[in-house]
């Protein structure tokens, strides 16, 4: 037996109680997957299949109806500082400045830190997302992308064992999204952070993820496939489509989303060398499923 994974999800199921006179809804069931330490895992699936619910269960904000989540062999039963959450709507407190927002998290995590130590930690992570010039601004004075970066800094600043991100870039334009993706990629590669991220964007998943979980549609959704990213690290947005694995893998993911589950990736024929000659994608908005 190999050593158990960092996160183990075992037979997870979520059923919402019946609204008056209707049958209860089982959103997903029989979920089994694992996340290794240092791994970047993306979850892709159509809207409403229960992705946010899964992330909330991992964060301890929601309870599963059945099944277990283990983290380092201990069952997860509630929220905790060992997991940092980047919320879909950034969830910054608008009455606090950037510095105070991040400090709120740092003080909760490092209760014995002195003022200077808190400040140093705050400034380090604000700098990491490139927001030092805006550190004393309130959220309403920032752009959408900057707010999302504060959310990321806040999650990183508590130095969690795992980062949970629910469509962190969903509300951003393609250009800003790309810039922040690059930043996130660099930070995660430098810190070997374990990440679980929900996305609608296939290219985002290919760029960032080591492993992509593909979910079928709800109700009774399941993780139908766990695809390992064949593109070698380090990946970059500019170079990634020159990789021979890029198009076959991307097509595979798109097929899954459009046509439903098929043969798992890798069990098909390996990509041919000729794929290098495929034309560059037309410039324009990236493919977003159900975005």
């Amino acid at each position, binding site marked *: 037996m190999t050593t158990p994974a960092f996160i183990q999800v075992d037979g997870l199921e979520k059923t919402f109680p019946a609204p008056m006179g209707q049958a209860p809804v089982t959103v997903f069931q029989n979920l089994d997957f694992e996340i290794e330490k240092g791994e970047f895992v993306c979850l892709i699936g159509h809207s409403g299949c229960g992705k946010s619910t899964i992330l909330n269960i991992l964060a301890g904000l929601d309870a599963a109806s059945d099944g277990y989540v283990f983290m380092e062999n201990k069952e997860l039963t509630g*929220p905790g500082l060992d997991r*940092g*959450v980047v919320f879909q709507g950034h*969830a910054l*407190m608008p*009455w606090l400045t950037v510095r105070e927002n991040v400090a709120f998290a740092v003080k*909760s995590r490092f209760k014995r830190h002195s003022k200077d130590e808190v400040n140093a930690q705050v400034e380090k992570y604000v700098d990491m997302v490139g927001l030092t010039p805006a550190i004393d601004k*309130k*959220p309403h004075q920032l752009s959408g992308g900057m707010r999302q970066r504060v959310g990321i800094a806040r999650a990183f600043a508590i130095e969690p064992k795992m980062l949970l991100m629910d469509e962190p870039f969903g509300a951003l334009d393609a250009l800003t999204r790309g810039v922040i993706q690059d930043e996130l990629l660099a930070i995660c590669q430098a810190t070997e952070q374990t990440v679980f991220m929900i996305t609608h964007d296939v290219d985002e998943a290919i760029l960032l993820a080591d492993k992509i979980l593909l979910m079928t549609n709800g109700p009774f959704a399941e993780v139908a496939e766990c695809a390992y990213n064949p593109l070698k690290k380090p990946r970059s947005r500019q170079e990634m489509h020159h990789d021979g694995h890029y198009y076959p893998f991307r097509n595979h993911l798109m097929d899954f989303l459009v046509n439903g589950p098929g043969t798992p990736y890798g069990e098909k024929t390996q990509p041919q060398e000729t794929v290098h000659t495929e034309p560059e994608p037309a410039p324009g908005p990236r493919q977003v499923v159900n975005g």
Partner: protein
Amino acid sequence: MSQSLSLRAGIVSILLLLAFIGAWWGATLPTQVDLGDMDPEYAAMMGLDSVQESDIPTPGDIGSAIWTHLSDPFYVKGSNDMGIGIQLAHSLWRVLAGFALAALVAVPLGFLIGMSPLMHKALDPYIQILKPISPLAWMPLALYIIQDASISSIFVIFICSIWPMMVNTAYGVASVRDDWLAVAKTLEVGPIKKAFKVILPAAAPTILTGMRISMGIAWLVIVAAEMLVGGTGIGYFIWNEWNNLDLANVIFAILLIGVVGMILDMIFGLLGKVVSYKEV
């Protein structure tokens, strides 16, 4: 542009005031009474004069009343003759005491109602019944139980200030955004810190609005309460001057009540600005 707008508005305000005072002055001019062929001596004996002073005070009368009161506001010459500043201080003290006591009760209770749907449902019938009661209706009961006019007035202020503050606090607390609470949860923030660092600042603008409404009502009610129980205060002052048939003093007191009410409202407006935030 906006500067010139407020300038023009100011000019219009002043013109309106001048027009009003002018009309007032015109309406209260002494009237020439036609005494016909009455013997002037007989007329004087009957208290009639060819020049009849108006019953209603003129702008000049009000001006001199203002001057008299403001030039010596703090004298005390006996229980029925005190400077306007002293009377005002009595009223303000009652309002502030009743308001502060109400805040001490309403804000924590509002927190409880806002956080607990059970308490919300359990207390709602009482609040709904108590809220529409005119605060002055409590006065006889208060006087009987407390046996002190001044404290009874404070109680009446307490009871009328409590509802807007409580209802607004409960509403503000209940509508704190879920994602801020989720942030607090994931950071394992304790209940006390959550209440003071997340819920209170999030609900503060709504709470302050409730306080502003309460203060407005309290200032309305204190005048009536003091008219009722007498003794001291700006309300009693008005009633007393009415009994003296000194309408100039009554009008002066009315103006003063308006000015003080406006200042109280402005203070709460400023406090509200301090705690407000722009949602994003």
